[in-house]
């Protein structure tokens, strides 16, 4: 009976939105999920730092892996190896993947293009351990004669100097495998970005008499610049943290050298952890966790720089 009474007395000019239990539940769960992510990340940082502290404080003489050297001196060749391998990989992969993405998005015939895009997606999902197996058993042997040739004719370039590795399992092979691995990821993102270019921009450029390449330079690249950088950032992040392929391909010795063809190779941090974790004990585990923390910081720094570039570019790109 009461419900049928007309609410004449509560005449408000602007009705407040009704708080429905469904709405509250839904937004609450959504917010909760977001907060969990923040907590997980805080926990990652917290536990890594807590477990790393013994590596810095322990006496280096009695600690596994350190063998008398201070921790920072132990870790810096590893950092060098990580960055060096990833940079070579990125230099090789970046132009190639932009080329492939352009080929799929703007050059290949429509019908083939979707198939090619599918193949690239498929390749992005091939597990790293398979790349490692192939790199160690097949690819390194294929590259070895080429390395001998490179060393003979271009040995005057410092990178290619030194005695060529007889197995071909060098840092250059590892970087090439890394490049092959990050290619599909970077290509997939670049392709997506290129396909997002407004059709009107492209058609306007072509209508003004631009050739296909000029259209790409004037319409596609400015639109996709941020996407290309973030694709490279993701690729670099994956290359920095990639473990298995490098562990299996590289015969690592922990040297600090810029020569890429010898059997004296730098060890990236992830490979070092994977190789030594099985026999680690006591503070040795803490040392490895501390190197992991350093790796985390390095990748974080790379991502931060890349994000800064993306944000700075976004203002000028004219796309939106």
């Amino acid at each position: 009976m009461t419900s049928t009474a007309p609410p004449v007395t509560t005449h408000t000019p602007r009705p407040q939105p009704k708080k429905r239990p469904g709405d509250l539940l839904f937004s609450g769960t959504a917010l909760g999920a977001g907060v969990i992510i923040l907590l997980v990340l805080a926990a990652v940082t917290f536990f890594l730092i807590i477990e790393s502290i013994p590596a810095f404080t322990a006496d280096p003489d009695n600690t596994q892996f350190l063998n008398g050297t201070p921790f920072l001196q132990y870790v810096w060749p590893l950092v060098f190896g990580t960055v060096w391998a990833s940079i070579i990989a990125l230099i090789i992969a970046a132009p190639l993947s932009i080329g492939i993405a352009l080929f799929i998005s703007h050059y290949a015939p429509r019908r083939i293009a979707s198939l090619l895009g599918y193949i690239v997606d498929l390749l992005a999902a091939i597990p790293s351990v398979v790349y490692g197996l192939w790199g160690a058993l097949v690819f390194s042997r294929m590259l070895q004669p080429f390395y001998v040739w490179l060393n003979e004719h271009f040995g005057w370039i410092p990178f290619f100097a030194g005695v060529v590795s007889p197995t071909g399992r060098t840092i250059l092979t590892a970087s090439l495998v890394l490049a092959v691995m990050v290619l599909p990821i970077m290509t997939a993102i670049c392709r997506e970005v290129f396909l997002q270019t407004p059709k009107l921009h492209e058609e306007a450029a072509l209508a003004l008499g631009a050739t296909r390449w000029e259209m790409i330079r004037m319409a596609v690249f400015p639109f996709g610049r941020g996407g290309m950088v973030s694709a490279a950032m993701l690729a670099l992040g994956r290359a920095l943290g990639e473990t298995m392929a490098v562990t299996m391909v590289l015969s690592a010795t922990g040297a600090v050298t810029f020569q890429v063809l010898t059997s004296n190779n730098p060890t990236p941090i992830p490979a070092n952890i994977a190789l030594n974790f099985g026999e680690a004990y006591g503070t040795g585990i803490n040392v490895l966790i501390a190197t992991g923390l350093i790796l985390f910081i390095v990748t974080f720094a790379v991502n931060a720089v890349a994000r800064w570039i993306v944000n700075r570019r976004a203002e000028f790109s004219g796309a939106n």
Partner: protein
Amino acid sequence: MTTTLERTSAPAAANSLTAGQLPRWMPWVLLAAALALSAAAFAVVNLGEEVRDFNISGAVFFGLLAFGIVLVALSSVVETRRRAVDRLATILVSLAFSLALLPLISLLFTVVVDGIARFDGTFFSWSMRSVVGEGGGALHAIWGTLLVTLAAAVISVPIGLMTSIYLVEYGRGRVAKAITFFVDVMTGIPSIVAGLFIVALFAMLFGPGLNMGFMGSLALAVLMIPVVVRSSEEMLRLVPNELREAAYALGVPKWLTIAKVVLPTAIAGITTGIMLAIARVIGETAPLLLTAGFTNSMNLDLFSQPMMTLPVFVYDQFQNPGTNIQAALERAWAGALTLILIVMALNLIARLVAKKFAPKFGR
């Protein structure tokens, strides 16, 4: 009179729109000619030596180089300089594509050819328990992979999906910005660091030296959540605002709008993203190496004892081949083939879902 007649009739015969352009077949003919010439040159050098020493890569390389130079030079003479640049770009882009395909073809070819040898009944019905040398299989590893990945998906899909809903539908201000930022950071967590994190966490809570399947699931979930958030967020953002506004205009509550309008529109893309995320983590090796550990026996309990997984199995067979190296490598290749087939199946299903349930938009 005759000369002017000729002049007026000539352009009419050759279409005036295509005047000053190379005919369409020209690049292909040039390419074939360049490759043939280069092959012939290398064959002459190779004369008197064995056929198998014929330098295929050299022939192709110089053939392509000659093709590029000739075509660009020809184009800049017959056509304009701008067209020449365009042709150069086309050549480079196509070259990048074919160059990148080579290692990938080689990879797939090797995995299939070398993996088929042990891709048999024994491989799928045996574990490696007390197997020395030949024989043995990966049943324990396949079960381990399925269980660990399933648990990881169960943990990360709800969290990832709800987070993306929060970011797209509710998130305003600082919290949303912080979550976006930290999801970005999480995307960049190297897989081995995720493994180390779980190791450090369990070492502090339960003491060091633990290995179990669930630790692996947690490590994989850390890697999977940001991927799910990213892909779902992207898909939700693609849903046109007009749909939401139409629902609001009809008086539909917000949560119902999300559940009945936004999610169904984006569900194909979201499913595809989740499938691809699973395909991405199912092959992760490094975190499982540290958390789920090694074993040669079957273990279906996620919460006790080490659990073998397929990627770790492949790595283990490669790194510790034991006495019969050939047999171990064959098992490794078969494991790799299985892994690739699982990943491909996941991708295929994802594609079918995307195709079947995709909303019909223009473009």
